[in-house]
């Protein structure tokens, strides 16, 4: 008899595709009959997906230009001293 708690503890490995095949079969069997575990897995997947989606923001060009300049100055200072 598979319990939800045992299932969920191994979930992270399952979600990262890093799990022994026997457990995968067991989990998939459990999921067929357990809506709550399905909701749990989906929300765990979505947690990560939402965090990934929000990441993209390009470096503003103006900031980038100033940064390159500072970097070059720092480099010059370092290697001119040597």
């Amino acid at each position, binding site marked *: 008899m598979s319990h939800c708690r045992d299932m*969920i503890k191994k979930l992270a490995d399952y979600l990262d595709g890093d799990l022994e095949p026997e457990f995968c079969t067991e989990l998939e069997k459990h999921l067929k009959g*357990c809506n709550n575990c399905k909701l*749990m897995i989906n929300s765990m997947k979505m947690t990560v997906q*939402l965090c990934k989606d929000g990441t993209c923001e390009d470096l503003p060009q103006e900031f980038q230009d100033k940064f390159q300049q500072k970097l070059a100055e720092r*480099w010059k200072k370092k290697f001119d001293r040597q």
Partner: protein
Amino acid sequence: MAIKTDEKELVKQAKAGDFKSFTKLIENYQQKIFGFALKMAKNREDAEDIFQETFLKAVDNIQKFRGDASFGTWLYRIAINIIRAKYGRENKKELLPLEDYLPIKHGDHSAHVPQLFDWNDPLSKLTNDEINTKIKAALSELPQKYQLPFLLRYTQELSVQEVADTLKLSLAATKSRILRARMAMRSSLSGYLSGEDTNVTLS
């Protein structure tokens, strides 16, 4: 983690004082470090500081880079040190034991029951900005020792092994922190999305 050959050559040239090689070396990491800084920083100004400091420190210390970790790992370590120095000792609540994020056993009336419902419905009613604000809030509640591995793994897309190398943790500790962070994030977001306590008892 072995350092790539072309990277090795660029490091050699940079150490000899060639700025072009250094620029090429950091090219692929700028956007990544900026994204990471945005996630870790309290505001945008801090994120720009962290980003800039990371690469200026990399200039100062390039001779100390020995190549036993990848160049990316080395950069993340510099960024993490800057973040730690900037924010000092934090005053955040330690996460609950993993057990407390799992569904309760019948008859256990713990207050921290994961709320289970279909997220698609509440999410469809929120704008991207609203969702991002909620994520930022949930992230900011995580202590750094969970925040860091979680972000390195999922937003910076390092492998578990690379996260372990970057943070100098064992593989087991890394996995366990990533899972606890994920469960805690799930739980916070659940709370924001549902707005109510729906206790569910599982087997």
